[in-house]
């Protein structure tokens, strides 16, 4: 009783509050804003100058690596029999110098970028695509949960070198074998990630509340769940790129990667390692390009994840 009186005393204070005319139209006006999830996500994402810079750099590198083979006539596999053209330091004619066989490293770096980015994008597409679908089933179906967990344990425990060597025996090591070996196990890791996220989104309080209020499932799916999943897909796909480039370098190091004559960033780095003490630039320059690619994708993936969280929207 006393509290109500106190409240009345506060609201009635004419120094603090002013009365207003009743306006029907105004009273019907709800707090609706034309908030668009994607617009806010991208606005938050591109607010940071570093993100803009990295996006520009990545776009330039990807464009360059796909256009270079079309516009340039330099053959990256052309060796030279003249020792004078071997191990040339970076200069006007060969921007990144030449390697131990006189091949132009600038051209090799771009061809390598193209092949490595292509492989990484294929793996990202298959891992995230298959993983997302499998993860959705896994998250929504309680019955298959124990089976899938065991399948996950089995698949992650069979060393991928086994498939790689076997595949290399069935067909020659190539883009395809490396893709199969890496993709055959990547999807289940992604599926587990999506399963966990879908479980937590599906049972989160705002969705339960929404369901209780009678929101149709279609609307919950399109407005609450799918935007969340799509931003996860974009993030995971971006993070797949540094991972698969790293795996390719690693497999080359182990000796089960791409054949030596295929130009990939992994092969360039591993071949450059041998001559590093004498001619450091042969490895250093392509490695810098590789690191820019992996770091940029990693940063952009993480930044996008932050930006897609509505709590960070203003």
């Amino acid at each position, binding site marked *: 009783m006393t509290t109500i009186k106190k409240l009345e005393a506060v609201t009635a204070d004419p120094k603090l509050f002013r009365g207003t005319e009743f306006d029907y139209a105004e009273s019907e006006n709800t707090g609706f804003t034309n908030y668009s999830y994607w617009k806010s996500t991208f606005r938050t994402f591109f607010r940071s100058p570093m993100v803009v810079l990295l996006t520009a750099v990545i776009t330039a590198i990807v464009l360059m690596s796909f256009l270079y083979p079309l516009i340039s006539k330099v053959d990256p596999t052309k060796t030279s029999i003249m020792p004078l053209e071997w191990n040339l330091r970076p200069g006007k004619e060969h921007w990144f110098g030449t390697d131990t066989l006189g091949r132009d490293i600038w051209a090799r770096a771009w061809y390598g970028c193209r092949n490595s980015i292509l492989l990484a994008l294929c793996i990202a597409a298959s891992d995230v695509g298959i993983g997302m679908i499998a993860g959705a089933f896994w998250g929504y179906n309680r019955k298959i949960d124990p089976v899938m967990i065991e399948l996950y*344990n089995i698949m992650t425990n069979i060393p991928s070198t086994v498939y790689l060597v076997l595949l290399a025996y069935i067909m020659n090591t190539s883009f395809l074998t490396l893709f199969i070996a890496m993709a055959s196990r990547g999807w289940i890791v992604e599926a587990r990630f999506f399963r966990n996220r879908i479980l937590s989104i599906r049972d989160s309080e705002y969705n339960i509340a929404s369901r209780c209020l009678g929101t149709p499932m279609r609307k919950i799916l399109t407005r609450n769940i799918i935007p969340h999943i799509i931003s996860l897909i974009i993030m995971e796909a971006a993070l797949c790129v540094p991972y698969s480039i790293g795996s390719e370098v690693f497999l080359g190091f182990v000796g089960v990667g791409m054949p030596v004559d295929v130009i990939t960033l992994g092969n360039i780095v591993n071949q450059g390692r041998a001559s590093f003490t004498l001619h450091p630039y042969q490895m250093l320059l392509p490695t810098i390009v590789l690191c820019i690619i992996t770091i940029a994708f990693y940063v952009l993936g993480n930044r996008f994840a932050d930006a897609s969280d509505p709590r960070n929207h203003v």
Partner: protein
Amino acid sequence: MARYILKRTLRSLITVTIVFIAVFMLLRFMPLNGYFPDEMIKETDEATRMAYLRNQGILDHPLVQLWRFVKNLFHGDLGRSLTVYPKVPVLTLLREKIPVSAAFGFVSMLLGIVAGLAMGLFMVRFRGKPGDHIGNIYILLVRAVPSLIYLFFIQIWVSRWLNLPLVYYENRPLSWILPVICLALSSIAWYALWLRRFMVDEENQDYVKFATAKGLPKKQVLRKHVFRNAIIPLAAYLPSDLLNIISGSLVIETLYAIPGTGGLLTTAIKQQDNNLVQILVLMYAVFSILGVFLGDLLMAFVDPRIKLTEK
């Protein structure tokens, strides 16, 4: 609890069996020529090689080989290496190599936990300040740049800069420093990253706001409340980390020429050393599944709110 452990053990046994049989069968599809080095194929004729394979039991039906392997395993006979270290018993090989990898792994694991947690704590304490940014850049570099690249540059440049030996020598402790640090680099980044993330999550909890409102100094809130709750999820990974030390690191052991277990599995697969691959896969699968299992138990132990038997 006992029922949960029993059920989980049975399921893990099934998983290990499937992994093992899958790898065992895959190995039997390998080409027969793969059992011999190239020079040997040039020098010997088909019949001699076949006789050798028959003698080794490789030409028997895979199921016969599987039965023989299981029987020997229970007699404590792990077989002999075929191609990587011809005729050396696998057990001797493991006894020689595991201690080397485990010693390096254990020291670097401790270093990783101590330095990683300290770094995470430091980054939270100075969140948004230069110290935090430096930590983030370190984590970014370690996680985004392929490990082979930075490990190679550390070996070449840091060893020259600090005048440390370039490779491992058994009797020169000075040469052990770099490999240990290199092994710890990624786990430092991992612990720092997740500790920071979990601590930031905890900081938004009501009990932390309450503790701050009570007037506790920030340092004490962080150490007594936030830190203790934030390390619980990390505890789940501790058993896996501990068990994984025996498998060594391929890149680091190759770069520094450490005679550990690091490259053993990959080399054995490439040279089709069936006996060695089988044992290693069996061992690693048991350890990795056991690690996850122990991690779940440990988590339930340190956090009474977590109940494994429910659901």
